[in-house]
């Protein structure tokens, strides 16, 4: 059977710099930062006391949860994931099934790293006090990794595969490739894909301990996330969720859905923690392999890529990433595509990063723009030695985009690269 073409028909986002597609679109167009000072991190003696966390109005949650669910909801990842996921589904014009109907053609692959840490913390205290019976009925569902796909599945009534993937900071991008594969192979008509990540000190603490966070901008939070800059000295932790409805072109056309873009496909691999790779650092040869495989799998010529939404976290690995893109695509200087990092505005949203950043990429295709990098006035000389400064916009450029690339790289030396194309009927 020939492969099904796959398109994007719905978007949802719950990002530090915008909850909901309209607010988020405005934020990325205008370079609005979602990084704020976090008193709790200061009180707990964190080196990095700034972070990105979506701001959720209290009354918003009633639209996504029953009063009973809200009563003891403590998993921020589930909160963010539900907002993004349900929004994407509704944006696609898809119905929520009634209580006697299951939609066997629609599935969910929604990733996360750790889920429900606040809930888990409470459960640990109660358990250690010998009060295990006091844990109640929702400790399991709020702390199991697949809690997010389970909450979404129950809300929407999906009956195809409903699961959660986890590959550290590659998670959000990987979920898109997994959902794409499922539709392309004819196993599902629609897949809700994306990723979410809890917020808070118990998520971010381990990174602070590794000394990979930026400690130098606690008094200037919005300037703290500095991908590709000379003085990039660590990432700013983030949180949130991004979601996309993937759908076979056939299904999208049959119900006259709005098509945001086509998913050409991509590639996923691991550097095996060999050569330059380790548990926490990417093997550059494998990164290049992944990018080249994505080109090959989608029959895309490197010269046709208009813009790249990079991983680019600001830990000091940005020049290496730029070199990998340049070598893999065989493009440099003025011939390099545009490149940007959403993390300059949101921080690193971990398991949600790839999905929030892909939503931004699809908005670029939809609106004909390349969003500008903020905090971008002193690009690392190792980067400008490879690519022209003009390819790293610090203001949004309005320009038709035909093909956009998105890649994410995660702990465990895992990589994923996706390619998206403007859809022309």
């Amino acid at each position, binding site marked *: 059977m020939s492969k099904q073409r796959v398109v994007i028909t719905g978007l949802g986002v719950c990002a530090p710099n915008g909850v909901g597609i309209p607010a988020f679109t405005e934020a990325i167009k205008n370079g609005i930062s979602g990084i704020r000072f976090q008193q709790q991190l200061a009180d707990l003696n964190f080196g990095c006391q700034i972070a990105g966390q979506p701001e959720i109005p209290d009354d918003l949650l009633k639209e996504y949860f*029953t009063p*009973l669910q809200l*009563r003891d909801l403590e998993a921020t990842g589930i909160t963010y994931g539900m907002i993004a996921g349900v929004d994407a589904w509704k944006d696609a014009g898809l119905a929520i099934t009634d209580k006697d109907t299951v939609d066997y053609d629609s599935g969910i692959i929604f990733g996360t790293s750790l889920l429900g840490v606040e809930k888990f913390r409470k459960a640990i205290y109660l358990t250690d006090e010998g009060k295990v*019976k*006091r844990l*109640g*009925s*929702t400790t399991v569902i709020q702390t199991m990794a697949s809690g997010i796909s389970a909450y979404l599945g129950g809300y929407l009534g999906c009956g195809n595969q409903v699961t959660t993937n986890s590959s550290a900071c590659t998670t959000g991008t990987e979920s898109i490739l997994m959902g794409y594969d499922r539709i392309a192979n004819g196993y599902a008509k629609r897949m809700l894909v994306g990723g979410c990540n809890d917020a808070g000190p118990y998520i971010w603490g381990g990174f602070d301990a590794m000394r990979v966070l930026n400690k130098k901008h606690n008094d200037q939070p919005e300037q703290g996330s500095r991908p590709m800059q000379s003085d990039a000295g660590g990432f700013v932790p983030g949180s949130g969720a991004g979601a996309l409805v993937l759908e076979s072109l056939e299904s999208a056309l049959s119900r006259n859905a709005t098509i945001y873009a086509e998913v050409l496909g991509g590639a996923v691999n691991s550097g095996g923690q060999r050569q330059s790779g380790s548990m926490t650092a990417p093997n550059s040869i494998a990164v290049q392999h992944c990018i080249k495989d994505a080109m090959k799998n989608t029959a895309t010529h490197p010269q046709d890529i208009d813009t790249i939404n990079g991983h680019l976290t600001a830990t000091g690995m940005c020049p290496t990433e730029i070199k990998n893109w340049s070598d893999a695509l065989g493009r440099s200087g003025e011939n390099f595509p545009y490149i940007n990092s959403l993390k300059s505005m949101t921080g690193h949203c971990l398991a949600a990063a790839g999905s929030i950043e892909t939503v931004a990429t699809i908005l670029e295709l939809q609106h004909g723009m390349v969003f500008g990098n903020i905090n971008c006035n002193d690009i690392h000389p190792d980067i400008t030695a490879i690519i022209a400064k003009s390819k790293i916009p610090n203001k949004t450029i309005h320009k038709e985009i035909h093909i956009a690339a998105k890649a994410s790289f995660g702990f465990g030396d895992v990589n994923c690269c996706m390619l998206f194309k403007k859809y022309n009927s």
Partner: protein
Amino acid sequence: MTMNTDNYDALKKIIKIYLPEDVSVDDITPNSHLINELNINSANLVDVVLDVEDHFDITIEDDEIEKMDTVASALEIISQKVAK
């Protein structure tokens, strides 16, 4: 057995939170079966028990939970415990 209306009202208030959308608090009678008639999710029974324990300041054992299938049987267990 004479029913303690204070306890009944308190229990109704607790149960109300766990009712699905299509069941109203007015549907609750002493004879209502919590799962079969009021359609309370069986997983939520442990939460009902926690709320009952908190409200009445009592402890309910696992074998007693199994006997709490109707509103009346729950009230009976509560009144025994509260009397002690």
